[in-house]
């Protein structure tokens, strides 16, 4: 679990979330830049997941291991699942779903960081 990476993920995720909120208000669907941003977000999430798994395999111990792993699994699966569900909806509500998914991804990084207090 890398703190700078978590911050970067949160920034990208919030930016995408706000962009999607604006697009939804304008009754538009997410265009290529937003979709590329979502791909970047997922790439960062996968790297963060890998960093955390490596640290755990190397023996980092967490007081609340179960909760951390639960959030970690959801943080990696949320965006792909949510994006598929969102993009099948051809109205502004699809854009809104993408906004919610991105904002939840940012919150998950905050939760992960607060649970990441490794001993050893």
């Amino acid at each position: 679990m890398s703190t700078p990476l978590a911050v970067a993920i949160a920034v990208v995720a919030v930016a995408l979330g706000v962009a999607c909120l604006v697009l939804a208000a304008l009754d538009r669907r997410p265009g290529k830049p937003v979709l590329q941003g979502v791909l970047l977000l997922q790439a960062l999430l996968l790297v963060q997941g890998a960093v955390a798994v490596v640290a755990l395999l190397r023996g980092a111990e967490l007081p609340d291991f179960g909760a951390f792993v639960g959030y970690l699994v959801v943080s990696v699966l949320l965006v792909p699942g949510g994006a598929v569900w969102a993009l099948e909806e051809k109205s502004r509500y699809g854009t809104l779903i993408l906004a919610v998914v991105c904002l939840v991804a940012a919150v998950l990084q905050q939760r992960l960081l607060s649970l990441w207090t490794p001993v050893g």
Partner: protein
Amino acid sequence: MADAGPGEASGREPVAAGPGRLLVAVYGIFAVAASSRAGLQLLTRFDDAPVAYLLSALAAAVYLVATVALARSMRRLALYACGFELAGVVVVGAVSLLLPDAFPDQTVWSSFGAGYGFVPLVLPVLGLLRLRRTA
């Protein structure tokens, strides 16, 4: 109330279209959050507050059922699930305020779901409204 189920043979608007699709997305996120937390409570701290944790697990299971039922336009099942959630959050919310000792640990429904931004109170109402809208 006829239940067309997946496929919508009757030609009605699917529950999970337009705003309904957003509702299902939020339901899904909440179902995952509630079931993860409940699973963890049952696995690691069950002896602390068995009644509260079993209630959380029951609530989480109903959220999962409601998510699937809304997503697939299984209207009758969705109606029961949303109705059960609304009854649960109102009853448990009231009991948790009147008899705080009955729930030593928080459940999703305690204090009308205040610990979860009242999402547990709002979701079933929106679900029922959506079911009526598309009936």
